[in-house]
């Protein structure tokens, strides 16, 4: 039961119930979709990037509490971060869920440390990382921000 309390902390339950930045974005210039075909979770991530800085982030989708809360807290964190900072956090977050963490990382992760409990539930790690993989794809696979004005 202790592990369960660690997993479903108040912050996660709250962000699941009231996800932040839960809307589409008409002027987004980075976009990626994340799907987990095994469980049917899916998520659309919208970013607005200006001069290597993420000035706005939002998402839409369906998923479990862990994946929704993760997307909500991630988008919250992304505002004002550089692409490089986002990439560093992607790696730190991934390590948080799969490896023992050092104290420096705990400081870096801040609020996102709330997902530490997921490590005890290997089957749920993918739920927590879905939004972050979408972020990684949005920043990479779309190489340059796609503008709606190009056509």
């Amino acid at each position: 039961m202790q592990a369960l309390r660690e997993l479903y902390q108040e912050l996660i339950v709250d962000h699941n119930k009231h996800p932040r930045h839960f809307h589409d974005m008409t002027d987004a210039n980075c976009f990626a979709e994340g799907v987990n075909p095994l469980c049917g979770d899916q998520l659309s991530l919208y970013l607005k990037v200006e001069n290597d800085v993420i000035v706005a982030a939002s998402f839409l989708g369906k998923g479990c509490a862990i994946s929704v809360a993760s997307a909500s807290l991630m988008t919250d964190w992304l505002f004002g971060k550089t692409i490089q900072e986002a990439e560093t956090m992607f790696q730190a977050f991934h390590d948080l869920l799969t490896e023992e963490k050092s104290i420096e990382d705990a400081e870096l992760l801040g609020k996102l440390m709330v997902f530490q409990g997921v490590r005890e539930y290997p089957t749920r790690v993918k739920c927590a990382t879905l939004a972050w993989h979408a972020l990684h794809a949005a920043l990479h696979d779309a190489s340059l921000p796609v503008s709606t004005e190009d056509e």
Partner: protein
Amino acid sequence: MLTDSELKKIRSDFPVLHQKVNNHPLVYFDNAATAQRPKAVIEAMDNFYYHDNANVHRGIHVLSERATHNFEEARKKVQHFIGAKHKEEIVFTRGTTESINLVAESYGRTHLQAGDEVLLSYMEHHANIVPWQMICERTGAKLKIIPINHAGELVLNDLDKLINKHTKIVAITQVSNSLGTINDLTAIIDKAHAVGAKVLVDGAQAVPHMAVNVLELDCDFYCFSGHKLYGPTGIGILYGKLPLLKAMPPYQGGGSMIKTVSFAKTTFLEPPHKFEAGTPAIAEAIGLSAAIDYFKQFDLEKIQAHEHALLLYAEAQMQKIPGLTLIGTAKHKASIVSFIMDGIHPHDISTILDSYGVAIRAGHHCTMPLMDFYQVAATARASFAFYNTQEEIDAFIVALKHAREIFH
């Protein structure tokens, strides 16, 4: 109904049930995904490996004779279990999925052409959708779908339109793995035969819960898996009417399925061997045979009454939980309950239940079209076997209530 002592005896036959998971007694409610195996099955397979292991057919030595004998006896066991006329009508496969693929590939490829129709239902498992979709893409045939109502029952009002002169194959489940609905297939099979179409029945969820007789049912093909019938994984059955099997081309080529091979031409064995290329799952066939022996020692009506009582008790208790909705409320149901809870994703329900030692399944259950029909991404599903108890349902309900507390 099973008496308490009968139930206790049955539970003692299943070693895996007697353990703690997350400090709670294991409550195994994922039987529709795979059932547990009784000692009789485990020991039959062990015994084969300890004493009789050899490859089947053509071996001129004692162990091979024993293995072949046991393997072919298993075939007869299955034949009698489902009431088939000939043992040659029983093809061993890896499971229901392979059985359906075999028919789609062998019968479908040679009988379907552009303009033909393959009729499925809305509640099919992906295993009874995707193989047909793949063969339709290659042949130009079209998929047609029998609709369902909100309770999860087939709607057969337009059967005359659904089954018409273009219909060549009807592939339909006898019991829905997601909803538990038991389908009465009589009208569908009669109508299909009237227009000359063949009917494949997916019996994966039916065989553990009801008496199956393929002659009475008069289906052309019947498919099921060993592991949902308390037998091993890796073994399944395709029943096909003998004239159909004889006329069908092989599914896979290789050893054990040929009469003669030359570089110019190969000739094939008769069914069932024509469809059993390569070394089969011998121990698994023997395990399935033991599972049938084990299952048949019980009075099926007693088992059904017990499972039905569990279903009614679970549904009644679940409906008392605010915000819980049952998905699938057909009049005739096997002991499978799908449900959703307001504000709690099925995966979260499953994780919380697991912390109470309760194993259920959460997801789309390989029925994504059905999830679309109910406009949900996933459901939670509890499925009961005859070794489950009312006390286990009580533990399940306590865990469900805790899930609601966490999220409200």
